[in-house]
Structure formats: C-alpha cells, structure tokens
C-alpha cells in the first residue's frame, strides 16, 4: 500500500507550513491529484487538504481588476456575471474546459497546477523514460505517437502540451498569480521545459496559490476564447486562442490587441508578434490571417502534430474576426 499522511489545513499559513514538507502536495478539488495518483505519477508522502480554508473562494470583480480566490470553483467563475461581462474570454475558456462534473469540483488554483495529458507522462509502468517525472531519463514521446503534442516551446527534453484553457486567457490579459509573499505574471509562472522539464511552475516549497488577479482593460472586455477540438465537449484543444481587442474611435483601427495560444505549446503561449503586427492597423481579413501566421515562429513538429502549425493561426484569425464583427 502506498501510505501517505493526510493533513487538513484550516488556514493559508498552516497550508504554507505543511507545504514546505518534503513530498507534500496540496489537495483542493482533487481532479488532477487523484487522477495522477491513480496512474502512478503523483506519489505524495503528505496530502494537505486546503479545500476547507475559509475565504479563499471569493470572486471579486471590479472595473479595473478581478481577484479570484484560489479555491473558487471553475463553474462558479465561468458563470459569474461580472466575469462574463468584463472578461468574456476567461468565462468562455472555463466553460469549454473539461466536463460539467469536473468544473464543479476543480478550483482555479488547482487548474493552474494541472499537468500535461502526454500519454507517456501518464504511464510510468510502460514508459519509464520521462524527463518530467524522472529528470534525465529521456522523453518517450519524441519518436512516438505525437498527434497531441506541442509545436511551440518544445525542447529535446520534452514536447508535452500544456493542456489547460483558463491560463491561456489569463496570459493574454497579463494576469498575475498571488503566491502569498510573491506575485508574478501567470506568463512567468509557467515554465517552458528547456532542459528542466520537471519544473513546470515557478513555485517554491511552502508557497501556496491564494488568488489570481486579472487587470481590467478594454481588450479584456471585448474578448473571446475559441477552442478547436475533435469533439464538441470534454476534450483538450487541438488549438485554442484567447484574443482581446480594443478598437480606435473609428471602429476599425486596432488600438490594443492581446493574443495567446493554447493546445499547441508547452505552456500558455502569448504571441506578441501577432499583437505588434496588428496594432495601429485597420481590421482586414487578409492582413489578420497573415499576421496570425507570425504566431508559429519557431514551431517544431514531430510528425503527427504537424497539422497544429497550420491550424493554430487560423484559430487566432477566427477569434480576431469574430471580435471585429461584433463592432
């Protein structure tokens, strides 16, 4: 039997203290941890249940900033009236994530800690080599079945796709993650694998995510999340885009634009090249499509995932066109 100790933290401070223990893992909604424990990937020596900490599930939305508590449920945030009006891309990303059952359980903080669906990562029994699980052991995915693997931010150590939706929208709008003592951009919180595939987040022992803060903006108010996938529900993105758009008074010139990609990169992937190419330009389909191609600079495929290089810019372009049409 794989024994572990279970601690229930009733305050953030207690959680932080316990989280500093070696082998400790936090339990919130449980949708990732229990899944990974069952397939032999997560083997915590201590499970710290933070789901009973009071006050961490608040959703506070003002015009200039939204603060979402780490324990807020995905379904609650998705359905929050002010989130829908001030940050539609955030709400849409959440609605299209996972399934209704999972959204009712999973928390915002836990969602940021969601790990890849790479089948090699999830099957230690049959595929011992995985740099994420066992640094230096190699990557079983490279040369294998790669239809769902990343094309951006990959390294020789790891090509696993970041699977989430919410963080793609957060990265587009410069959201920050609050780790108690430290606040950092969500974009910086996620780490591309490089040579250290095991390090997925900039989080230190003893740190606990307490909230996510999203700055309000005109682009965030006029935003959308488009997710393309093989089936219509309960599936990870083949490619997704979170886009926010602010137009000049003429109703057609781009004043501000935010673009981030999901499903095709090893982390939520902001594409500033596309943003810069379109700022100050009038909306035009041909130009939007051309600019969207800039997102794939540096893309590397591994055969079966080649199609994602063609697909991702089209998702960006569709999202921009959709926002432009609602002018």
């Amino acid at each position: 039997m794989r024994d572990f100790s279970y601690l229930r933290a009733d305050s953030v401070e207690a959680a932080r203290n316990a989280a500093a223990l070696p082998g400790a893992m936090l339990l919130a909604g449980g949708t990732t941890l229990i899944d990974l424990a069952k397939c032999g990937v997560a083997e915590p020596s201590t499970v710290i249940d933070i789901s009973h900490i009071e006050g961490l599930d608040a959703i506070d939305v003002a015009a200039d900033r939204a603060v979402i508590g780490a324990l807020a449920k995905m379904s609650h945030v998705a359905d929050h009236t002010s989130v829908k009006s001030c940050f539609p891309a955030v709400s849409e990303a959440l609605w299209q994530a996972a399934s209704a059952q999972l959204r009712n359980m999973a928390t915002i903080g836990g969602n940021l800690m969601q790990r890849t669906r790479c089948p090699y990562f999830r099957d230690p029994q049959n595929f011992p080599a995985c740099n994420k699980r066992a640094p230096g052991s190699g990557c079983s995915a490279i040369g294998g079945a790669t239809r769902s693997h990343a094309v951006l931010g990959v390294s020789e150590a790891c090509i696993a796709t970041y699977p989430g939706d919410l963080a793609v929208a957060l990265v587009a709008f410069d959201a920050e993650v609050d780790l108690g003592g430290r606040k950092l951009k969500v974009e910086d919180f996620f780490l591309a694998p490089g040579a250290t595939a095991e390090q997925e987040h900039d989080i230190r022992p003893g740190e606990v995510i307490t909230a996510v803060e999203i700055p309000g903006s005109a682009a965030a108010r006029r935003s959308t999340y488009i997710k393309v996938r093989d089936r219509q529900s309960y599936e990870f993105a083949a490619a997704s885009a979170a886009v926010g758009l602010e137009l000049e008074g003429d109703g057609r010139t781009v004043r501000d634009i935010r673009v981030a990609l999901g499903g095709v990169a090893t982390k939520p992937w902001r594409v500033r090249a596309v943003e810069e190419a379109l700022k100050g330009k009038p909306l035009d389909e041909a130009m939007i499509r051309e600019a969207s191609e800039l997102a794939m600079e540096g893309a590397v495929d591994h055969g079966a995932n080649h199609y994602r290089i063609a697909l991702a810019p089209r998702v960006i372009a569709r999202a921009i066109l959709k926002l432009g049409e609602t002018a």
Partner: protein
Amino acid sequence: MTVHDMKHAASDSARLEAVGGRLSRVDGPAKITGAAKYAFEQQLEGLTHAVLVGATIAAGKVTAIDARAAETAPGVLAVLTPDTIMELRGASDWLGNPPSQPTYAPLVREVTFSGQHVAAVVAETFEQAVAAAALVKVWYDETPAIVDLSDGKAGDGIPIDAMTKEWGDAEAAFAEAPVRICAAYNTPREFQAAMEPHGLIARWEGDELTIWEPSQWLDGMARTYAEWFGLPFENVRLVSPYIGGGFGSKALALAHSAVAAAAARMLDRPVKLVLTRPQNFTSYGGRAATRQTVAIGADRDGKIQSIVHRGVNETAVDGMWVEPLGSVTSIMYATPNFSSKQNVVRVNTVVPGAKRAPGENPSAFGIESAIDELAYELGIDPLEMRLINYAEQDPHAKKAWSTRQLREAFAAGAEAFGWAKRSNAPRSMRDGRQLIGWGVAAGTYPVRRAHGEAVVKLLSDGSVEVESSSIDMGQGTYTILAQTAAETLGVPVERVSVKLGDSHFARAGVTGGSRLAGVMTGAVHKAAGQALDELIGLALSDPRSPFQKLQANTLQVRDGRIASPRGEGPDLSIADFMMAIGRDQIEAKGDTLPASTTPEERYKNYTTIAMSIPHTEGDYSRHSWCAHFVEVRVDEDFGTVRVSRVVSALDSGRLYNPKLAESQWKGGIIMGIGQALLEEGIVDRRHGRIVNGNFADYMLPTNADIPDIQTISVGIPDPHSSALGGKGVGELAIVGIAPAIANAVFHATGKRVRDLPITLEKLI
C-alpha cells in the same frame, strides 16, 4: 435472477403492453434508481481481490518474475505467475472445435501483445492488490513486434478462401467498363468501450463453481469454465442479471476470467477481478483494423458491370479473427460480375473480436463510399445511383429476398430529409464559414437465426413468470419477453415477471448477431402457448373446473380472466380458477428445436454457434436494411466535422417494441458517428502499444456531438425470418453511418476521406 416490478412501466395504456406496443423498459426504474445490482456488485463474505500485471512488451519472452516484494506486501494472499497458477485444460472454441492444446495458460511466458497478462496478485482488499501488483518485477527478452497492418514486416497475410465470393469474370469486365473507379478504404482498430468494464466474481463450493460476470452468452461461457476445470457443465452457474454494455465483447470467457476462477480455486476464497479501464483496451479484442480496395466498373448510364473487392484485416499472432469484408459488397447492388477475396494479417495484438456488426460495418464503409465516388464520376445523384443498381434479388445467393424494404427506406428517408433540395456539386452549400454537406448510404445486416428455450409458469395468484438464461444488455429483452408472454397468455403485462441472466434457467444461445429478440420471442410465444393450452385443457376437462359443464370446445383468456368466447357461463380470473382446481402452478417449457433433437444437439445448440441457421437457408435470403441521410457542417478553416442532422429509414421487419427498437437504432447511429469522426486506437509504433486506452483519450461522442436523430420504420412482418415476423435490430443501424458521413464530408468539402476516423488534419 431478477424479478421486476412491472407497475412503473405499465402505467401508460393497455395498448403499450401488446407485442408491437411502445412499453418503456421494465428494467429502467431499477437501473436509474440504482436498485439494479450488476454482476460483480455482489457482496460476498470473504471476498478477495485480484489485480493483473500486464506485459510491457509486445513480443518476446518472460525470462524471470520476482514476486518476493509483492508476496510480502500487506494483505497479499498469493501472487500467481505462469509457474504458480494451477493448470487448466484447453477448452473448445465457440464453434465447438476441440482445443488445439491440451492445457490452457491464462498467464503467459511467451508474450504476443502488449498488456498480455503475465501475473496476478490476490489480496484481502483491492487497494492492497493494486499496490502489490506494482511491486511485481518482470524481466523480458524482447523480440521485434509487428505493430499493425502497415508494418513493413506484416506482409500480405493469409488468404481466407472461405471468404472468396465470385461470379462472372469481374477482372475482365472491370477492364472493359467505360467508367471505372478504384480506391482503398481503411478503418482503424476500434474498441467496444462499454461503460461497464469486464470483470467477474468467482466462488467455489466444493466442485461447484458460481461466476457472477457480465455476459452475452451464459451457456457458452459456462461451457468454457466447465472445460477449463474439467467439470460437468451443470456444475458451473453463471449469473449475469444486467450488462452495462457489451457490443459483442462479452460473449466469451477470457484469460482474465480464467485467472480469477483459478485463483478462487487455489485460495478456496471468492475472488473478484475487474479490469482497469486501460486493461479493457488490451485484454480482449476490439474491431480489427481493416483495409479494402473497391473497384467498380459501370456503363455511362450508371449501371454497374463489375465489382472487384480485396480486403485485409488484422488478427493476432496466436489467434484468428476474420472480419468478413465482402459481406455487404456482395449483396448491396446488382452486378453481373463480382469478385471478393480476403486475407488476414497477423500482428502483435490481442485477438480482435466482435464489435457491433462485425464485417458488415467496415464492408459498408468500402462499398457505400465507392458507390458515391462512382456517382460523382458519372455526375449522377448518389441516391439515384443506388436505385439504378438496386438488387431485386440476392446477387450472391441468387435467391429472393424474404423482404427488402430498402427502396421504401430510400424514399421515406429522402422525403423526411428533404434530399430533393440538395445541390449535387461539392462545396455548393454553406452557412458562413461552415461548409454543409448532405450524404446518403445504405446498410444491411443478415437475419441470424437460432433456437431458444423458455419456461413459462402460471402461478396460483394468476401471475406469470418467464425464465430464460438469455440476457438483457440494454436492448430490451426483459420488456419484449414480458410483452410476448402477456399477449400470448392474455394476461396484463404487469402480472408478468421475467427472470433472465442465470445459466440454471432454460437454455439460450449467444446474444449476438441481432438474433436474440427473434429467437426468444419465438421460444416464449411457444412456451406460453403451451401453458395456455394446458390451462384451457384443464378448464375444459378437470372435474373441479366450473367450465366443465359448459361442454365447450375452447375457452379464451383475456385480461387474466377465463371465459367462453361467446360469453356464456362462468367468467373467472386465472387465480380463482387455479384455486378451484387446486393447482399451484402450470409450467410449460417450450423450445423452437425440432422434437427429434438429441440432448447432445441441444447442448451444442446452446453452448456453441455451430448450429446457427444460415440466413440464405431454403428459398430466401434474409436481411435487415436501412438508408441513412446525414448532414454535416465542416468548418472551412479548422476542418472540424460536426453531424448536424440524421434521418434514417430502417427495415427490421415487424418491431416487437418500436420504442426499444428506435433506441437501439439510435445507439447504433451514435456509435457510427463516433466511428466516422473520432474512434481510433493509437498505437505507439516502437512499442506496439495502445497509448490512448482510456475514456479521456479514446474519443467517443459526447451528447454535444449528437444531433437530433430521426428514425423511420419501413419494415413489414417477415414470416421467413422469425416466428413473430421481426428481423435484426441491434446491429443494423451502425452499418452505413460512417460512409454516409464520409459522403457528406465529400459533398461539403470536395475532399474524399477514405481513412477513418475523419479527423480535422485530413481536411485542413
């Protein structure tokens, strides 16, 4: 054994109860309230838990197993390996052929596929067994594996001469035809993906073995267990009250079943073994991957002159599965020249098995795609193309169809769908950035017939019990047998309780090939008729009967009451009559076998499929038929395909319960949508291993992927197919859905996708 309270289901109206009425499923309330106890949900005293260890290589030898850490882990009772598991005898196959080996080893030293069972751990709790199984260390001597049909080492395979169908001179006629098309069509390895996993509880009491296991064939599986352990057939009892989906996968006792039963024997404790979800993708076979080429030569007016068909399916290194790829090809269209041949190729996989409409399903993908290609080659409407080549008789058997309402299906489906409004050119219909396509395809499934047996008991309170070792895996056996008994006996349906899923009940053969409803309604009709005859006989002749003095020739039973047809004399409930004559029950056992059948033949009939009756026996060729009309929307940028409308017109003969038939048809259509767009076992070619063996990564349709589906019954009673006039229902509707979708995708996009599933990268 299960007795249903019929009151919930029968509250609608009397009309629902008769055969042909839309009675709701009588097992529905038990299932939705959780009262239904599935096979391995039994709580037994002293129950232990077994967990399997699967091979991590696809080919090679187990050189050593170190079980010491597992053996000393908490709660562990035994670690079974090829060296320590008890020896089992070889069992005959499902045709009754004797075993090729005298012994059977469900845990192997020679590995022929990844995931094959090499060890098992039995512990007091499930968690202890899981933990200890991870401690079993296995060393292998790995050899190169043939991973799939496209593997360079796979070769051309083995010709299966029994699959060859030829008439005329197909090659020459094709060469001379003025219009020709030839294309290759591929289907991937697919899985049955039943929600309820495979598993069982095995318990020994002396030399008597009880198995609780979801089963599509109690008698056949009980025979296998009996042979493995050298027991008389009667010593094995299989119990399977409900089945959470089978789709062809639950008809045989498998290696994991043998491991659990052997472990129970060795430990003298009941053992529960349930496959994990990933093990459900490697412990038994799904639908074999297939490759077909279809060449059609035609006149300029669209009349087919020749069809040349070649097929290949994968099978296992150590097992044979033939997926009959020419089955639809050879009967759907009239052609003076025809040739179909098939090979099988051995690859390192678990032996493939039956999945809903094995053979007909991939066969239809080939021919129904090809006929569409021919229609476009000629510029003829694809529906018109099918009517031009309508087969007025079975072109292969050269016999009349028993019934073939396919023309009616085309007409009814086209009318309801609005086919006449279709513009034939590809990419000619759109809605914004969505390309719209309309496709049509036909489907068919043979009427597989067999014999069955049922016991019908009239009890002293006037209620009726029906017993059969057949099963209900959601298709509605409980319900239609209640309707059949009620109608035959003249009692209200809520007075009938149906007991299924126990091999100690009256015998039944396999529930597969869409045969059960036809077989069992016939058997229950016969047994109930015998019970009624006895009841009326007693009423007319028993000295204590109030009817005796009537001196009538016959009596009738209606709504549970006995009376003379003219209404004179007494009018008694069955209960009052039974009391009057002092009987506590009338029992009749009816079967559909000829009276001359020997006990050996009866055993063979129920425990093998060797005595199935050919669908072309006698003067007729018997099949169900259907026509599917499908609308797809394809995103022009993303290549994503969504099915937005399905209208299917189907000929399953007479429907015993239209509500349940429609439910089965829709289930087949939904499964076909999954096959067309989503389902594919993805193999890591270096390891010969399925890497998407779970319900997140093996794509099945969600509710959001399924549009409203309209089904239209165009069947008429077919007296040549079954006692009550029905033909097969369960498998028919999946046949033809994938090509209808592929044809619609071509209409939408101008791209012909010949490899399933039609995923977005094939269209962008």
